[in-house]
């Protein structure tokens, strides 16, 4: 197992403002990525595009849109988990990292699926099932960390 926490914490848990934080700009992966196993529960498509969403200021945000190259309507918002949960330290299975050709932390980009809840004024990060991509090749997969205690719905409240 490899513990990964590139932005290691120092982030305040109670209130985080991330819009212009240079540490948490968008993912450094190719605009087109490969998910040979597709996205469970969503699509078997293997080629996906990934684009950083802009914050209201026009700056890159910590959110990206992961969309099927064949059908852009099939998409997920993903986010840098450390923008919200500085203590997040998933143990990524070595065999799965190897399968992606990732041999060091520098080669991995991790993004977690985001579910918006407009009624509640919050969103949820899936910390149990992070996407992991090789920074150079864009080869990735969604890992399922079933042996760890990360929540599938980690709530982040938005102050309006």
């Amino acid at each position, binding site marked *: 197992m490899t513990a990964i926490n590139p932005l290691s914490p120092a982030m305040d848990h109670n209130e985080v403002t991330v819009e212009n934080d240079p540490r948490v700009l968008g993912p450094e992966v190719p605009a087109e990525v490969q998910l040979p196993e597709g996205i469970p529960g969503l699509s078997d498509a293997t080629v996906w595009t990934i684009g950083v969403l802009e914050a209201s*200021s026009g700056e890159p945000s910590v959110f990206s849109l992961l969309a099927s190259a064949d059908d852009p309507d099939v998409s997920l918002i993903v986010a840098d988990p450390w923008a919200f949960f500085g203590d997040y330290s998933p143990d990524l299975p070595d065999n799965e990292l190897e399968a992606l050709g990732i041999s060091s932390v520098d080669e991995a980009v991790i993004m977690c699926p985001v579910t918006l809840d407009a009624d509640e004024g919050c969103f949820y990060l899936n910390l149990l*099932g992070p996407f992991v991509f090789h920074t150079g090749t864009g080869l990735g997969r969604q890992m399922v960390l079933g042996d760890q205690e990360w929540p599938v719905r980690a709530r982040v409240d938005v102050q309006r």
Partner: protein
Amino acid sequence: MLVLSRRVGESVMIGSNVRVTVVEARGDQIRLGIDAPRSIAVHREEVFRQVQDANAAAAATTDRNSPLLSGRRRPSQEPRR
């Protein structure tokens, strides 16, 4: 569904490179050992389903212009469950 009977210590081959072995049987609990290529991820079904459901939920809320995506945010729980 294919149903096979196996004793403790016996195995089932799935394809040519996945082997599932009954390690122990105690009451209604069975312990399985799984030998599979390193590229094949093995999960408990209920955990995998959680992630599948979460993906479907996330895919249903992809409003890139949502005000939730900008502004101040506050995690309301510790990340560990």
